[in-house]
Each structure stands twice: as structure tokens, then as C-alpha cells.
């Protein structure tokens, strides 16, 4: 139905297809050594851990299945042909925006699970959330529902389109449009599907939106540690304070990124003592790298902005 590898019209086309294929495999071969070097040297639980890769794959396949649901009906998800899901997920894999978000989601979930094991931090009901809900906070009730839904989905390696940020949704829809262009019957359908998906996306406040409203609320303490407010709210608050993209901050919370994380926290105006405590919470053994003592917010921001030049 959606077939990227349609038969080339002539020999020239075939040759072009072969060249493209060769270029792709050449690029893959060229990056083998750097990737291998990274993997061998990496600490366990790193951002290329098997679990994370499996999750990224699962998430991309889930998004593909949702698109197919919308295009050809969701009565029986198992009925989607292997090949169709594969073509779509490969197209998503080739897109930087979609892939980066899927990776960030997988990393955020990995962090959530890690802290749940190490700190006993409930993935849904953090101490802050529990206290606010007990106090009858309506906004927090909304957050709780959204977070519970998200956790449920993550356990199944699913990422509902309603949960993705708008730029990611745009990227997904653009890919789908480009893929079905060749198929007139589907082209007509895709416009309707797009409208429907966007409508549903706008209708509900997804987890990220509710989290933004929660951290903007007066009841939320901006520098609250992750053990108090939970991973979701911590990241959203951190993004709001630092002005950095949330997905990038998830990556900075990975093992081996302590220096970057410390600089980001300092640059966001977190007192040095708090930075040390927060890094210890996230990474267990190690705290703030000692070399960073005495660096203030301005200096941290400057180093982050021009890592090559600053001394």
C-alpha cells in the first residue's frame, strides 16, 4: 500500500536507487568505529543501552502503527502488514526531529525507572504531587491523570501522537504526506487524517503542557529536587528556568554527563550546594565535579555557550 521501493521505471532509475543504497550503507560503515568506540567505553545504563535502543524502535513502530490506524482503520492493529509498519518506522528513523524525540522519551523513561528503583520515587505520584493532591489541587489532579496515562503507555513502549510536542507532530505528518504522495487513493485520505490528528492533539492538554502549567504555578518551588517533584516536573521546571530544550536536558541527565548537567544547573541559577545534592540524587555515587566549585551562573552559561573557547 505504501511502498517506497516501487519498481524503478528504467535502468537509470534502478542505478540511482542502487547508488542511494550504497551511499547509505557507506555512511553506516564509516560511522562504525566511532559508534563502536563509544559503546565499548560507555558506562552501563548509557544512552545507547540495549533497552533504550529497543524502546526507540518500539516507539517508532508504535507511531507508525498509529498513523496506519488513522489511514486504514484501527479495528485490528495486528492486521497492519509488517512491511508497511517497517517502511513508516524507517522513514521516522531518517528524520532527526522525530528520532531525537523518541530517544529523549526513551531516556526520560529509563531515568524514571532508575530513580524509582534507586530512590523509591513513584513514577506517577511523587511526594510533591501527593501533597498537592491531598490539598485538593485541581490542576495537580489533571497532571496526575496525564502522567498516569503516559506511564502506562511508556511501559508498552507506546507514544501517542497526542503526547508529542507540536514540532514533532508536524514532522511526523510531513513524512506521512511525502510517503503517500505516490498513492492517489491515500493522498486524499491523508488530508482528512491530518486534520483529525491535529484536532485531537489540540483538544487535550498532554502531559508536557500540563506539566508546564504546574511548574508555572506559585505552589511549585522552582529548584525542587527530582526526589521531591518527580522526573517529569523536574525536567519541565529545569527547561523553563534554563531556557534549554527539554529533550536536550534529558540527555544531560545520562551517566557520564555530570559536568554538563552541573553547568546547566548552575547556569539556571541553582545554588552550588543544591547542584551537588541534585547530581548525587540522579547519579547515586558522584556529586558535582570538584573543578566546578566556584563557578557562578554567568560563567557556567558562558562555558556552555562556547565550550571550545572558554578556559
Amino acid at each position, binding site marked *: 500500500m505504501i511502498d517506497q521501493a516501487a519498481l524503478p521505471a528504467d535502468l537509470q532509475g534502478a542505478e540511482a536507487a542502487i547508488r542511494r543504497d550504497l551511499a547509505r550503507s557507506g555512511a553506516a560503515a564509516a560511522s562504525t568505529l566511532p559508534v563502536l568506540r563509544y559503546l565499548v567505553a560507555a558506562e552501563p545504563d548509557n544512552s545507547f543501552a540495549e533497552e533504550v535502543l529497543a524502546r526507540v524502535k518500539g516507539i517508532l513502530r508504535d507511531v507508525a502503527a498509529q498513523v496506519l490506524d488513522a489511514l486504514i482503520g484501527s*479495528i*485490528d492493529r*495486528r492486521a497492519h502488514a509488517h512491511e508497511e509498519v517497517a517502511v513508516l518506522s524507517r522513514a521516522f528513523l531518517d528524520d532527526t526531529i522525530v528520532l531525537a524525540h523518541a530517544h529523549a522519551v526513551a531516556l526520560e523513561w529509563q531515568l524514571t525507572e532508575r530513580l*524509582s528503583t534507586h*530512590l*523509591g520515587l*513513584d513514577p*506517577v*505520584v511523587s511526594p510533591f504531587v*501527593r501533597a498537592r*493532591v491531598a490539598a485538593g489541587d485541581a490542576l495537580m*489532579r489533571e497532571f*496526575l*491523570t496525564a502522567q*498516569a*496515562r503516559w506511564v*502506562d503507555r511508556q*511501559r*508498552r513502549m507506546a507514544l501517542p501522537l497526542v503526547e508529542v510536542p507540536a514540532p514533532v507532530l508536524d514532522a511526523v505528518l510531513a513524512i506521512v504526506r511525502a510517503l503517500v504522495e505516490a498513492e492517489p487513493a491515500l493522498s486524499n485520505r491523508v488530508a482528512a487524517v491530518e486534520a483529525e490528528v491535529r484536532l485531537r492533539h489540540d483538544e487535550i492538554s498532554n502531559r508536557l503542557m500540563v506539566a508546564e502549567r504546574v511548574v508555572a504555578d506559585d505552589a511549585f518551588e522552582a529548584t525542587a529536587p527530582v526526589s521531591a517533584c518527580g522526573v517529569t516536573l523536574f525536567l519541565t521546571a529545569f527547561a523553563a528556568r534554563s531556557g534549554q530544550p527539554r529533550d536536550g536536558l534529558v540527555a544531560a541527565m545520562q551517566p557520564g554527563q555530570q559536568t554538563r548537567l552541573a553547568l546547566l544547573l548552575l547556569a539556571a541559577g541553582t545554588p552550588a550546594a543544591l547542584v551537588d545534592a541534585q547530581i548525587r540524587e540522579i547519579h547515586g555515587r558522584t556529586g558535582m565535579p570538584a573543578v566546578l566549585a566556584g563557578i557562578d551562573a554567568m560563567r557556567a552559561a558562558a562555558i556552555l555557550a562556547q565550550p571550545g573557547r572558554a578556559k
Partner: protein
Amino acid sequence: MTVDEGTIVARAISDGQDRLLSADEPLAALQLRCGGDIPGMIAVPELLDLVGRARRACVRMTQAISAQDGNDAITFWVEADPEGEGCAIVVRSWQTAALISEDGAVAEERRVAIDRQIAELTAWLDSGQRLIAANTDCSELAPLADAMAQGVGRCWTDFLQPENVTHQQPLHWRLLDGGPVVFAGSSRPWRVSLIPQIRPGFEPSGFELLLLSDQAPSDCVAIPQAAAPVPPRGLVGQDLAPVLKQPIARIVANAETIRTRLAGPLPDAYAEYAGEIAGAGKLLLDLLDDMADLEVVEADSFSTTADYIDLSDVARQAAGILGVRAREKGISITTPAPADSAPALAEFRRVLQVLLNLIGNAIRYSPEGTSVDVRVDVNGDRARAIVADEGPGLSLEEQGRVFEKFERLGRSGDGGSGLGLYISRRLARAMNGELSIESAPGQGARFILEVPLDPEG
């Protein structure tokens, strides 16, 4: 013209939807133990994958398949050859090894992961088991989830009534975990799984409640099933065994949890008692399997087919299947040389079942480091397979009793049910053959399976 096909353990046929239409033993038994039917969708995941790929690509594919049937880890070699709409499946080199039982914590983690995967409703509870949030994807459960969302702060048992529990709710969560529940709006059987959020040293700060059912929702698209012939039914094997297996498996699992101190520290003596409970439960499960077999062979309608087989082949396969178990005890099995031939007219899977039982007994009751000798010969119009061990041997009086139902010869605690030899002799006689013993105390035992000779073989 004959082509050397090597040793084939079993053959099977699948159709265009990867359903197993027919299968020889031991593949057929594995399919059933993995929860499948014949005919029915292939229930061994790796095999399903292989057959599906071979069928779609229209190419013959070969691969080693590993599977588990609940007791054993099984490895076998499969060739899937596209034929018609489906595949012809050939199985070679069947190896079983006792399943390495997972450490309690790992097993528990896996159980939780599976429960979360199949849960149709998830709710979050506070430390007093009061509702905080609820979430479902299932349209059937949407009203329940809505009601739960309205009833935040109330105890979850107000919405999901634990069956057979009249005690003032909520009970301690461990007593409610895994129990059946009922609620208005669904007639499916449901149970709950409670996962505590624990900080070591503290009472649980909250719980995750999973609502699970072993029955698929009605709006789930049914997989088209080929009409299956209704097999004759027996009470224990067909009706009682499936019902009993689940609670017994639960007893075993809980006893294992206690034994491995998963639920908290415990004096050694109690952990040992729990180990004994688990061991007894496992015996009970094996016994149920044997009872099911017993019912089949005792049924009036039981009959066997006459295949052209060579006892020598079957003996080598049986020895191969039990090779791992024998090596674990340091017992060597001598099998008939390929040149030895004993062509016979008997049902392949039944002969294999008898030989597996005989060789399995020999391994079980022989001292470590001894050998078990399997030979075949032809005696008049009979083909014979002889399994000889170097075990303690049996007195004449014991030989008279050993084929009786539930006869254990005073043994206990070794995993036997006392049904194996009884079933084996019934099988031998059903094939117009006989199963007999020659032994003397201290001299080991020789079990002799006789079946009709294939005069043209």
C-alpha cells in the same frame, strides 16, 4: 531413489495463516504445553517467526529454535519448507534440559513486567489503598475508570469487590494481591495485582493496581479458528487438570517467593518449609500431567496407529533427548549402532514415549557415574528394545508390582508419580506388544519393550 534425509524427529504441516495443522510428537506436545491447539496458531514464538518468514519469502529456512514448556528448556533444529500456502516443517535433534529456575527476585520482576503489559486498567493508590488515579484503554472498562476517577480518595475495593472476602476492607495488601474481583458491567473473570511502591525500611508509600483478565475482551477481533474435532473428554485430564494447574502453580510461585525471602526476612526453618511446599506443588503438577496421560490410555476409544519405524532410530532419539539430563548425573547412555536394525510396526510417538519413560527411570534410579545400555534386536516375529541399567535392581516380588498403577516401590521424594511404567505397559499392549522386566537385586534391571516386527523391513 532415496535421498539421505538424516534423522527426523518429527514432521508438521502449517497453513497460510501459520496455523499448525498436524504435528508429530514431541512437537505436538510442546505446542499444547505452550498454550496452542492442533490445529491452531503456532504457539512457540521462535517457530512462528521462522515459519512466517519462510512462508512469506517462499524460501526454505533452517534455524535452531529454543522454547520452554514450563518444566524444561527445549532446543531443536527446524527446517521450514514452503509447501502449498503454508510450510512443511521438519524437526531434528530435540534436546531438553531442566529449566534453570529463575531467582525469586528476577521471576517477580518478570511477573510484574508481564502483568503491566497485559493490564487492562491501571490505578494508583495511596498508602491506605485509596484511589489516586485510574486509567484504561479498554472501552468495556471506561465506565469503571470514570467511576474510579469520580471516587478518588475512596478505597479501591468499593469499586472492585474481592470475591469470597467478607472481611472489613481493606485487608493487608498481600492478602488481596492476585485475588479475583468482580464488578458490575463485565462478566469476564478478573483479578488484581498490587505492586507496592516501597522505600526500603518503610511501609509502602503507595500502590499500583493492575486489573487483569485471562479472557480477552469481547471487542477483540477473534482469530479465525479452523473447526477442530471434539476429542473425547475425561474428567481429570481434560477437565480437572487445567483448572487445578493454575492454583497449584500459584501455590508454587508464592512458596518460592517466601522461600527466597522476597517478602522480607524469615528464619531459615520457615524458608525450608516454603521450599518443601514448592517442591510438593511441583510434584502435584507432574502428577496431573501423568493423570491426563492415564486417562487417554485407559479410554475405550484409545488406539494406536502402526507406523513403519525402526526401534534403533527411536532409541537413539530418545537417548538424545535425555542426553543432557544423563550428563548432569554423570551417566553415560550407550545407544544401538546405526547398523543395528529392528524394523517394527508400531506408532512412533508412543514408542518414543515408552522409551523416554524407561531411559528416564534408568537415569533417575541409577547411581552417578554408571551407564545405561539401550539395545535393539529381533526375536522371532517381535522387534525388541532393551533398556538396561546398573541400578539397585528389583526383587521378584517387586518386579510383580512395578507395573501397577501408582506403584512407587516404597520410594518417595524423587519426582515420580508411580504412573509411568503403568502407562508404558498400557501403551505397549495397545500396540500388540509387551513391556516386561528382568532383574535381580544388586544386578541392575532390564526393561524389554516388544512390538510386532515389520516383516518387510
